[in-house]
């Protein structure tokens, strides 16, 4: 096979003459540092090839693929239902929202209806997922700033409570594999909603203490305010979604725009940032938790009875008509979309995941240029990536 290939970009190592404060001529070489794939601050097997002028970042190229597990290829060789457990492993913090996005895409493709009770269960589980994702991310961000342990331990303590709920509901802590096309796999166990209610009632108290401990912390302010700024125009052009986009002040939340599921029935606000820096991203996440708690409070009071799955939905031997569909939801990281092409066979012809984590990294270099390398670490932490989704 002869295929035209693109030549790799040439690398320039310039020698920059500099003047010291005393007026002496200094010559310094640029230093190339490969941060990753094994690096404590890269949140997994992610690599940044950073070119440094002293401590200042002059070039940053992200390198991906260290966790490229061929999710899309495997999904094209298996049935529609067979891909559901694989979606758990995309963004392994938020398996339930991944399930929902995939189920939504297939429901659009096949025209399935979701019963009322299942819609409520989906909203409740998705918002719980958002809670545990955002608390953990804030913990990881602080870990990157050097707050080793404490905030992350607090976050994980709350996360474990929510994972216990997931385990009671689905049988697994992380890889829930719970949603099905046209509903959910099984009904709620007895007393589950009361347990959720208790955790939702208690969560603000944890959040208050978390915020009181951190929000006005001098080190946190110094390390985050004005760091990793992102302009509104660039954010839109680069397809940034989720809390990162809203931290730049763009009012775009797919829960409000598409009103998928039953999100049009709940009252909640979209917190928006102003500066688009790391501090705004951190605060937006904490504010979104409070909004999620509002949604949960409303949803828990109104869960109706009935079936949890469309009785007409076929799980085995499922063959949607030829065609295509794109389904997207507002995941905790941003717009998570699934693009499916069906050719009428039991396997999807094309199966594509639109990964918010990967696309949110597009502007990593723009955000880090001119900053010190330590700020690059914090900026990366504020993007909130999960490598399972970046590389798939």
């Amino acid at each position, binding site marked *: 096979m002869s295929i035209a290939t693109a030549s790799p970009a040439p690398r320039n190592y310039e020698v920059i003459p500099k003047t010291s404060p005393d007026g002496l001529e200094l010559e310094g070489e640029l230093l190339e540092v490969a941060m990753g794939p094994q*690096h404590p601050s890269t949140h997994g097997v992610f690599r940044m090839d950073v070119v440094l002028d002293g401590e200042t970042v002059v070039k940053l190229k992200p390198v991906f693929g*260290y*966790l490229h597990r*061929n*999710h899309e290829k495997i999904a094209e060789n298996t049935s529609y239902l067979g891909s559901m457990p694989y979606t758990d492993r995309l963004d*392994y913090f938020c398996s339930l929202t991944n399930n929902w996005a995939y189920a939504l895409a297939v429901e659009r493709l096949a025209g399935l209806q979701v019963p009322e009770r299942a819609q409520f269960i989906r909203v409740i589980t998705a918002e719980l997922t958002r809670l545990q994702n955002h608390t953990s991310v804030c913990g990881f961000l602080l870990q990157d700033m050097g707050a080793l342990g404490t905030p992350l331990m607090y976050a994980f303590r709350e996360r474990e409570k929510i994972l216990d709920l997931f385990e009671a509901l689905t049988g697994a802590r*992380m*890889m829930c594999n719970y949603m099905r096309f046209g509903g959910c796999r099984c009904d709620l166990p007895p007393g589950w909603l009361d347990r959720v209610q208790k955790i939702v009632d208690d969560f603000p108290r944890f959040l208050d203490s978390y915020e009181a401990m951190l929000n006005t912390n001098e080190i946190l302010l110094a390390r985050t305010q004005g760091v990793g700024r992102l302009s509104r125009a660039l954010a839109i052009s680069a397809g940034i979604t989720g809390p990162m986009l809203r931290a730049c002040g763009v009012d775009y939340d797919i829960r409000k725009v598409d009103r998928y599921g039953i999100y049009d029935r709940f009252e909640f606000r979209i917190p928006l940032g102003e500066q688009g820096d790391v501090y705004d991203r951190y605060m937006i996440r904490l504010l979104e938790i409070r909004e999620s708690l509002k949604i949960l409070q409303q949803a828990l009071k109104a869960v109706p009875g009935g079936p949890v799955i469309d009785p007409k939905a076929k799980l085995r031997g499922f063959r949607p008509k030829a065609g295509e569909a794109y389904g997207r939801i507002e995941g905790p990281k941003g717009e998570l979309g699934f693009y499916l092409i069906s050719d009428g066979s039991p396997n999807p012809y094309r199966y594509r995941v639109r990964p918010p984590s990967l696309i949110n990294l597009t502007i990593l270099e723009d955000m880090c240029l001119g900053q010190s390398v330590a700020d690059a670490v914090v900026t990366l932490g504020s993007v909130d990536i999960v490598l*399972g989704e970046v590389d798939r």
Partner: protein
Amino acid sequence: MIEEGLKNELAKQGVVVTTIQELYNWGRSNSVWPLSFGLACCAIEMMAASMAKWDIARFGSEVFRPSPRQADLMIVAGTVTKKMAPQVVRLYNQMPEPKYIIAMGACAISGGPFKQGYNVLKGIDRLLPVDIHIPGCPPRPEALLHALITLQKKIESQVLTGPNRPRHLDAAAPSEFPVPEFGEHDIVPAMNPQLWKPRLVVR
């Protein structure tokens, strides 16, 4: 070698008798420092095991070292892709002896759910010697603790002299393993034939 009965008798009288081997292994087994090295989903469970609810510090392994030079244990927590495999081997080669590997989760054992992927290494034991395998996808933190305790038992039972002595006391045994290169279609070599000797099963 002192007899077990006499040792117990002496212990009742307040005299503790031990051997260098026991002392050495006791010390080693209770301070296994893992490399803070997460690959995929299992890394989150590894982190959960080090957090308050499971508290891996009870077993002396809370000191996750970011540098392989300071680590005793590599927890291969997640899918090893072919692109990552050379770095995993390189990291292992950089660890000082004695060093151990826990293959955590189905992916590290055999490729797991992703074993049909073109970029997935079908088990880390094709390239590195694994001491403990924990199945699960992902294994719960309890399973990781179980693996750690199993490793501690393994370390405690090591005989320091003689033909069965562990690798780090045997100058002839290899401590580093060849790092595969990136080829045009696959990594080269795709496996280490000295380590990976599977039984040929013909069906």
